[in-house]
């Protein structure tokens, strides 16, 4: 029985609160997240991971397009070899088919090996209702069966449980005292208890990781060895899997097998990979041959295959990695990060296979950090899929009020900027002299109180521009480079000092800067809110505003940069002007380090200890890793800190929707930085700055949080 999935934001927040208080799960998942990364990276060193992932994506994309041909070929080949192939349109039909196979063969008891598809269709409950004895034999699945729970991870179903809890459950079934500390002994209990079940079972049910069309064979990937017992000992074997597991050739399975175990469990290969081709000899069977049935489930898959975006789900090999690296999963656990399937793909599949209302609730809980996309065995753009689901809910159910208001306001730049100025005005009486809003009654913020919020600047950057422009790159004679500056709302209105610092650096290095006044919000928040039409309008405005001749369009906001560079193509399609615009966009660090170059005549090296926070949009979306660190090293002592690339918890509107999660991520990040001994933390994104500056202030840390532009400006020779 799966856990109770949330149907409303309220119920969901209650469950999240509970999960955040589960200290065992928190510790376990923290440890897992760190160890997984390290061991996973190591086992990928010896292969070309990117290339393998690309090949898996290509094969699976093609499979999604040729699903009917593949199915027909698979069926023909398997039936040639004595297999019965069934196709189930939905969960109910799949359950019926399997119950009927059991009835026709006089089956009384069933052993199962791990099969997420059976969780998807709620198979066990159905079979038990027919009076059948059903026993899970995968250790983790058996444990959660004893507790009547659903898996909290696709590969490690019982990761949320402690050895003591497991020992208690084992005491209940065996009636014997168990050693509550010794995991090795507990494992032996499973071996002892389950062996007789295998011997007695009439039917085995397994999943299948690959269905190979050219030969009608299936491949099953396991570690425990229960899978082989399940498909060998009983006289009937039912393999249940999704249509998305069809691949054309043996070689395709072998390609995916180079990634799946590495990504799932950091293994080069699992202990067992079994290729079953046809119904082989079977002593227990009355015919002397195994009764082998393969059930291929549709349940929304062929519909997804026809969708240009969602067809990507065919690439999923169920490795579970998207959960392993998800900062939200790490905090709340799998039961709160999925319905049946867990992790980023779990959110998407809940939408495609299961319940609309649950999907709507769960899909809000993606911070958009891109870690899942970066690690996925099939290179699925999971954040974009989740984003699109939100957008669809927005279109189908009507946008929630805040999204509607934002959309309305941002369509018109002047109105939007007026509103921002007004927000500034209304904040002013509460602002401290250091630029934080501390005294707003917290009741206005609810759980937002975990960080100090910036007050909006007295004077936005765009109002300072006429003054600044006078000095912009003119004393240096002929400029080295000509750029246009894209400010982004957060810097323009909240952190103009980050841009002012950049102007100092540009001036010292001989860069001529333009600031097109018609520029507006990049539009990312609109995309995040699912307001894609207005997002496209806003994008067009910006493309037009930056039509001049520049060597680069530079922005100090990593999120804007990634949206301007990659997001616009998605929004505007093949638009030549937009493509030219996007090609010129550079983030500040890459521009300064890779294109401009700062020599020691311009900057000096100070002795400040500086840590770095790698913004999600910079390190993953834009793949910029070296440039900012090199810049820090040029002017200061760079002190590495743990998990530099993990999300700070901001995530734009996410921090307002899930403040409890946002706050935890922020605290973790700041704890790592504090441990490093750094006195300053620099970053490349005003959003991260808002989160971490505000957090450091709230926590009273002796830590200066600045943009990297400010670090550079502080170390200009002129300034010293």
């Amino acid at each position, binding site marked *: 029985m799966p856990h109770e999935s949330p149907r409303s934001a309220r119920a969901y927040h209650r469950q999240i609160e509970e999960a955040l208080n589960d200290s065992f799960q928190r510790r*376990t998942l923290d440890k897992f997240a760190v160890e997984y990364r390290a061991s996973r990276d190591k086992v990928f060193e010896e292969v070309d991971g990117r290339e393998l992932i690309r090949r898996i994506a290509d094969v699976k994309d093609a499979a999604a397009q040729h699903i009917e041909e593949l199915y027909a070929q698979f069926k023909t080949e398997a039936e040639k070899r004595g297999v019965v192939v069934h196709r189930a349109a939905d969960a109910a039909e799949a359950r019926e088919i399997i119950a009927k196979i059991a009835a026709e063969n006089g089956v009384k008891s069933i052993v199962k090996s791990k099969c997420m598809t059976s969780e998807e269709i709620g198979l066990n409950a159905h079979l038990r209702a027919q009076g059948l004895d059903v026993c899970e034999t995968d250790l983790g699945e058996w444990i959660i069966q004893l507790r009547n729970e659903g898996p909290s991870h696709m590969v490690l179903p019982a990761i949320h449980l402690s050895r003591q809890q497991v020992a208690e459950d084992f005491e209940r079934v065996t009636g014997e005292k168990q050693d509550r500390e010794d995991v090795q002994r507990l494992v032996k209990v499973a071996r002892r208890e389950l062996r007789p079940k295998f011997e007695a079972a009439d039917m085995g049910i397994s999943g299948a990781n690959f269905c190979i069309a050219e030969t009608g064979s299936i491949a099953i990937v396991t570690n425990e060895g229960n899978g082989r017992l399940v498909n060998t000992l009983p006289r009937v074997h039912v393999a249940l899997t999704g249509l998305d597991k069809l691949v054309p050739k043996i070689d395709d399975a072998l390609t995916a097998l180079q990634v799946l175990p590495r990504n799932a469990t950091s293994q080069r290969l699992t202990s067992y990979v079994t*290729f079953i081709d046809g119904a082989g*000899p079977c002593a227990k069977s009355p015919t002397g041959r195994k009764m082998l049935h393969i059930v291929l489930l549709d349940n929304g898959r062929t519909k997804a295959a026809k969708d240009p975006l969602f067809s990507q789900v065919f690439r999923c090999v169920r490795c579970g990695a998207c959960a392993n690296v998800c900062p939200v999963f790490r905090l709340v656990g799998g039961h709160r990060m999925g319905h049946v399937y867990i992790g980023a793909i779990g959110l998407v599949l809940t939408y495609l296979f299961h319940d609309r209302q649950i999907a709507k609730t769960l899909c809000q809980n993606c911070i958009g950090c891109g870690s899942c996309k970066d690690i996925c065995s099939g290179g699925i753009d999971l954040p974009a899929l989740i984003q699109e689901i939100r957008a669809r809910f927005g279109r189908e159910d009507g946008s929630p009020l805040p999204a509607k208001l934002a959309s309305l306001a941002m369509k018109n730049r002047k109105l939007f900027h007026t509103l921002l100025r007004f927000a500034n005005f209304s904040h002013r009486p509460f602002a401290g002299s250091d630029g934080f809003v501390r005294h707003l009654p917290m009741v206005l913020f609810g759980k937002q109180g975990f960080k100090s919020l910036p007050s909006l600047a007295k004077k936005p950057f765009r109002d300072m521009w006429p003054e600044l422009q006078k000095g912009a790159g003119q004393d240096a004679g002929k400029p080295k480079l000509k750029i246009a500056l894209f400010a982004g709302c957060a810097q323009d209105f909240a952190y103009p000092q980050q841009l002012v610092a950049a102007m100092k650096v540009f001036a010292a290095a001989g860069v001529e800067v333009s600031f097109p006044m018609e520029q507006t919000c990049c539009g990312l928040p609109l995309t995040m809110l699912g307001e894609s039409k207005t997002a496209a309008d806003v994008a067009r405005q910006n493309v037009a505003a930056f039509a001049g001749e520049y060597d680069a369009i530079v922005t100090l906001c990593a999120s804007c940069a990634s949206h301007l560079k990659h997001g616009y193509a998605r929004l505007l399609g093949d638009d030549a002007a937009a493509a030219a615009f996007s090609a010129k966009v550079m983030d500040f660090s890459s521009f300064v380090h890779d294109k401009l170059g700062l020599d020691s005549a311009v900057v000096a090296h100070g002795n400040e200890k500086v840590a770095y926070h790698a913004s999600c949009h910079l390190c993953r979306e834009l793949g910029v890793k070296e440039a900012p660190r090199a810049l820090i090293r040029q002017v200061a002592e760079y002190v590495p800190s743990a998990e530099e690339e993990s999300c700070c918890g901001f995530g734009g509107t996410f921090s307002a929707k899930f403040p409890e999660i946002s706050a935890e991520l922020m605290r973790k990040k700041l704890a790592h930085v504090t441990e490093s001994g750094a006195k300053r933390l620099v970053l490349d994104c005003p959003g991260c700055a808002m989160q971490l500056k505000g957090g450091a202030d709230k926590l009273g840390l002796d830590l200066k949080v600045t943009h990297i532009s400010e670090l550079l400006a502080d170390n200009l020779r002129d300034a010293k």
Partner: protein
Amino acid sequence: MEKSPSFDEGTVARFVERAEAVATKVTRVADGAAAEKLAAEMLAAEGSEHVGVVRVAKGIADTGTCVVVTDDEETRLKTMLPETTVFILKAEDIVPHLADIAPFLRSRQADGRVSYTSFISGPSRTADIERVSAIGVHGPLAVHVILQEG
């Protein structure tokens, strides 16, 4: 005159290293007779209830894997039920990479053939309780490969 070996030492060495990395014990012997003798001794020491001796069709160096033809149930069960599996593998049958096993698999599956092929890389294992690695959950606790060079 010394016969040049029929296998590539680099590939074989990688097989040994990677097999050992997944807790497989590897013993190199000179020829078939020596392999049979060692296997017989191991079987005699523990008895067939506890030891299964099986010939391996192919090895895969990159993953330290034994590829075993297990079409009949008896052979298959020998690699599942006893606590120890003893594999006999000829060095010349080791292929370097996982992808190199495709022709072998295809030859076993093509033209309507019915087959059951097992890739085995070390003993049965689990990490389902607190992610603590444990060996021998449902299958063998120990895997021993007798690597026959000649």
